[in-house]
């Protein structure tokens, strides 16, 4: 059952400083209100995974591994592969994270990243069908948060996209209903690249890519996912406060404007298209 979180200790003075600075259009780390922190994306670092990527977003660090196995389709879509996104907020990453089964925060994180991938049709699940009703590729996207300095959603979404873009699976043959994997590999069937951006309302203004300190004083956040055609494909409001209708519209407009640059960073990191 969901409960109001214990807000971790941030001094009132520090909180007021952040809010006052933002009211005057500035941020503690010198960024403009609508700037991302530095985005560093490295793909292909876990050799045992089919795909992987490590993203640093400022001091936030997320590792995503993609494993592809052969399994059964869901009975309502027997001709499609399966995609599943899971997130772990391992206790290494933050003093208040605890070991144990996923809590509401890791579940929300996984589901928001999942929606961006699924609704943009990033992975063409139909092409992951091997034998309808029987065997399909199952794609596991595992988000592993290593260092939490705010805005886990955007770092995780970018890492998931880069990991999927970098993933390679074995080619296969089906003979007499038996699947055999071939030594050659191929990329996953990718048909879109979603970009996810999170805005926070702190006092009156809206800021992009909130840091941990900013998350501790924000009243609410809005996550916006934009597909490569510039359309909206996922939204998620979070936090204990509200946004005005105008705030919401502005966030969506800004996300549409800024998505191509981030998509470019991801594509560059994975060297996609060279295949």
């Amino acid at each position, binding site marked *: *059952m*969901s*409960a*109001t979180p*214990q807000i971790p200790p941030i001094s009132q003075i520090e909180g007021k400083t952040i809010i006052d600075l933002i009211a005057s259009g500035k941020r503690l780390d010198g960024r403009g209100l609508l700037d991302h922190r530095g985005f560093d994306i490295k793909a292909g670092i876990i050799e045992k995974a089919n795909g992987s990527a490590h993203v640093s977003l400022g001091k936030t660090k997320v590792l995503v591994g993609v494993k592809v196995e052969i399994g059964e389709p869901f009975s309502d879509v027997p001709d499609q592969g399966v995609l599943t996104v899971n997130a772990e907020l391992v206790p290494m990453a933050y003093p208040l994270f605890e070991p144990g089964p*996923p809590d*509401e925060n890791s*579940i*929300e994180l*996984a*589901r928001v990243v999942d*929606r961006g991938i*699924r*609704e*943009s049709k990033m992975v063409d699940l139909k092409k992951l069908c091997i034998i309808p009703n029987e065997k399909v590729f199952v794609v596991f996207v595992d988000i592993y948060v290593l260092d939490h300095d705010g805005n886990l959603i955007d770092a995780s979404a970018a890492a998931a996209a880069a990991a999927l873009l970098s993933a390679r699976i074995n080619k296969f043959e089906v003979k007499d209903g038996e699947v055999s994997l071939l030594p050659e590999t191929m990329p996953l069937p990718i048909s879109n690249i979603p970009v996810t951006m999170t805005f926070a309302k702190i006092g009156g203004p809206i800021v992009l890519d909130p840091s941990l300190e900013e998350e501790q004083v924000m009243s*609410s956040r*809005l996550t916006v996912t934009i*597909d490569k055609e*510039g*359309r*909206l*494909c*996922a*939204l*998620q*409001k*979070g*936090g*204990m*406060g*509200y*946004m*005005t*209708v105008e*705030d*919401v*519209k502005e966030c*969506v*407009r800004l996300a*549409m404007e800024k998505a191509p640059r981030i998509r470019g960073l991801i594509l560059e990191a994975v060297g996609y298209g060279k295949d």
Partner: protein
Amino acid sequence: MPQLSPEDLFRNGIRVDGRRWNELRPIRMEVGVLDKADGSAYVEHGKNKILVAVYGPREAHPKHIALPDRATIKCRYHMAPFSVEERKSPAPSRREIEISKVIREALEPAILSEYYPRTSIDIFIEVLQSDGGSRCAGINGASLALADAGIPMRDLVAACAVGKIAGHLALDLSDVEDKLGEADMPVAYMPTYNSVTLLQMDGVFTHDEFAAGLELAVENCKKIYQMQKEALRRQYLEIGSEGIEANR
């Protein structure tokens, strides 16, 4: 069951259940339906049947969740095993856990929780039958149950969803429409603040579809807000109702 296509859902501007694109399903709200709870409400929204109970402010349990400066809001959105087509296991699903969180966050801004530090206000939403839009109907019922429990609030929260079927914007999708539709966007709204307290979306919207959809959702949240007040008025007619009415 014959397979429907998205196009079947919207023929000549009329939807499978006879509604136009901008029509809500029939809504019925009743307040104060349970004996043990401090506040309760029952909402029927199309075929959704949802019961909400509120307990509190009461002692926070377990104690370590108590907050020094405000009440802890606890929220559980839960589906009965028989509420959906295929029997649902009673253990909370990932979907239910996420929805419990976003509903809590949709209600937090409306509750004057600073009045009751160190206590807990517990909201239990039980979906007895589900037919698309149950989180919105749950929020509508929860606002009523909170008011029924006498919890002081800044405003009532009203919620409804807007979606897209076969390329058309459509208000308040039912389950079959949601499954075959291209997008769904639930919105919770506090009229007094012209503010959004829940916003989720999946599917694909162009910028214009989104903007029109948001307007449509807000407009219909306002209608639902009037129904909520009406439901409270019916319940409290004889008593006179100040607290909540102050927000009109």
